[in-house]
């Protein structure tokens, strides 16, 4: 093969550069697949996902997350690898990636590989290199652990198909929720080129599932499903737009996960917001909470936000916020309410709702029982009754409950190391002026493809 590899550079140096360049991409190994080892290779996969370490930013390390190359012919404004940046460029060889993966995996450093890439020469050339790497890893090294790989937009569908038969998960990053955002910050990318491979992968997954019903040993295409990533806070879209896009991706493209990545301004481009308070971590957190509500709690984006109220409450999590606006539904009798309704009560999660349903078969539940089950009473008490009685004599009144909920400190994953609430709320102060049109979001994502 003939592409430039800087011969002088050690694997250690390459690893440094190509990890650094890959770190903003979010991925995780959960909601994957259970696959037992075959006894003839190395590796298995675990549906729940496994975290192998945690980096200094508190994020889980589960995959060898690297770029194949940080060379790129494109010039996305938010990206450290854009062609106009003056950074050291390098590429792995397929063999180097295989050796690192195997060496890390057998020492139990990682759950598998997450291979992304800048675009070297053209999309096909890059996709071919990725395919070769996966082929070697699966066939020569008999690696059976988890592989998440990027589909390069614009690459030959045939190459994407071949690669998908070797990977567990594939993703194409939408990056920006609206077509305007995309054309402004990623002038070489077009929404159509991103949605085309997404649709292809969706169809590939569907037909692979059908084939497996027919022939048990048919090769599986992207068995752990498809994911994507949205950058939060690089463009002025509001939370309602982001959630609507996410909802459409789940419903229309059957994605397994949408990841949200708080924008980190690496290039200081004038097109990009300065974010003096650092990356919008609180906003990212609220989006993940809401995403969770869409996937596991039966909420719709339109219930959580609206055009009149397009952003999440900074002070309250989306579920508490929803409950406060629907006080007419409360209090709920825990000993009778159905599962779906239990899920809507602040302080009750999926697990505690399941336990309530199970435990009330054998006895009537009291408040101390609920506590044992794992219900967070400090939050739930305003919304529930046990045997017709509330826990204390509390008023069902928005201001009153809000005030009380705010005294219960919410556990935020990031409010410790010196990042204060004040700084976090700065994302509100960035001062975007442009207000993109919401209809466009729908059209763009649904795209008449």
């Amino acid at each position, binding site marked *: 093969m003939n592409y430039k590899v800087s011969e002088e550079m050690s694997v250690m140096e390459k690893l440094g550069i190509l990890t650094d360049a890959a770190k903003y991409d979010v991925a995780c190994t959960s909601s994957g697949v259970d696959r037992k080892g075959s006894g003839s290779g190395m590796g298995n996969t675990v549906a729940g996902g496994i975290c192998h370490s945690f980096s200094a930013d508190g994020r889980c390390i589960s995959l060898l997350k690297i770029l194949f190359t940080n060379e790129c012919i494109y010039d996305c404004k938010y990206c450290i690898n854009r062609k106009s940046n003056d950074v050291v460029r390098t590429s792995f060889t397929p063999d180097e990636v295989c050796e690192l993966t195997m060496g890390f995996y057998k*020492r139990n450093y990682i759950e598998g590989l997450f291979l992304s890439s800048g675009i070297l020469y053209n999309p096909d050339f890059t996709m071919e290199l990725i395919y070769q790497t996966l082929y070697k890893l699966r066939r020569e090294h008999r690696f059976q652990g988890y592989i998440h790989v990027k589909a390069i937009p614009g690459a030959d569908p045939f190459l994407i198909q071949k690669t998908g038969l070797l990977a567990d998960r594939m993703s194409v990053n939408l990056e920006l929720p609206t077509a305007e955002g995309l054309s402004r910050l990623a002038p070489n990318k077009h929404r159509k080129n991103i949605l085309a491979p997404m649709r292809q992968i969706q169809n590939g997954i569907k037909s692979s599932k059908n084939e497996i019903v027919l022939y048990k040993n048919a090769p599986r295409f992207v068995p752990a499903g498809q994911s994507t990533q949205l950058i939060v806070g690089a463009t002025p879209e509001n939370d309602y737009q982001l959630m609507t896009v996410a909802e459409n991706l789940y419903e229309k493209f059957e994605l397994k996960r949408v990841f949200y990545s708080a924008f980190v301004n690496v290039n200081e481009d004038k097109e990009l917001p300065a974010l003096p308070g650092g990356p919008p971590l609180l906003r990212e957190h609220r989006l993940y909470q809401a995403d969770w509500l869409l996937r596991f709690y039966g909420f719709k984006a339109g219930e959580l936000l609206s055009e009149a109220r397009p952003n999440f409450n900074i002070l309250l999590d989306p579920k508490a916020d929803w409950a406060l606006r629907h006080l007419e539904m409360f209090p709920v009798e825990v000993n009778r309410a159905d599962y779906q309704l239990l899920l809507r009560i602040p302080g009750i999660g999926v697990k505690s709702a399941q336990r309530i349903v199970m435990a009330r078969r054998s006895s009537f539940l009291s408040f101390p029982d609920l506590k044992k089950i794992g219900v967070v009473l400090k939050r739930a008490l305003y919304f529930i009754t046990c045997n017709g009685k509330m826990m204390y004599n509390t008023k069902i009144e928005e201001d009153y409950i809000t005030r009380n909920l705010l005294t219960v400190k919410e556990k935020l994953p990031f409010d410790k190391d010196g990042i204060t609430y004040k700084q976090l709320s700065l994302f509100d102060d960035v001062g975007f002026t442009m207000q993109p049109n919401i209809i466009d979001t729908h059209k763009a994502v649904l795209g008449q493809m």
Partner: protein
Amino acid sequence: MEEKYLICEDSLEGIFTGIYKAYSLKEDHSRLHIQIGEEENLRLFAEYIPIVPDAGTAVRVSRTIQRELGEETYISICRALASMDKQKGEAVYKTVVCGLQMQNGRQVMGNLTNPYVHKVFELNRGTNNEVLHLMGFLRFQELENGILFSKIGPKNNILTFLAPHFADRLSLLNFVIYDDIRGIFVVHPASKDWYLVTNAEIDSEMMENYSREELEYQELFTYFCHKIAIKERKNLNLQRSMLPLRFQEYMVEFRK
């Protein structure tokens, strides 16, 4: 009538034998208790009965639990008994009693309002969480002779729950996992079944004879962990809460 304490060895065998004995006394279960290890706080007006673990008896009890309370409950009970908690014997005993009195014993673990069931539920979860943590946090080091060696310091006695995962994952490799707290090993010979070794001495010199590549890989991974962090998001408290120091102690990337 005075209370009776059955003093059992801290093992599946010991506690199951104790449960068998408790039933054979044919007394009110509320007056019978299972206590692990020594008779610590001797109570006046209590009788202490030392129980000699018996494999045959224990197997009968385990079969009864599996048959009457179901496989899933049985696994929960085994995990609870792997816990370091000293009240686990009593909790398991009373959970079995509760289950056998229920119309459908298989639902016993749903009965969370019963304090003993709740305790077993909690202990099971604690052990299981530690197993899940170590599935990720455990590190192997490759020795000169090609064996992968790992040393861990788990709170609970989890080796037997951890071993199947790695035996499946690394089935073609030789590996050893050493429980530093209890001095027991899991040994997995390539392509064969794994087994447990107790009362063995560890040749500490051999364990530090690394393969040619080992230190290089440790360095590569440490460097990777350093590079993957986003400095604008730095949050050491979050890191520590997700990955407690007691695990970090055994992990190559945190070695100074």
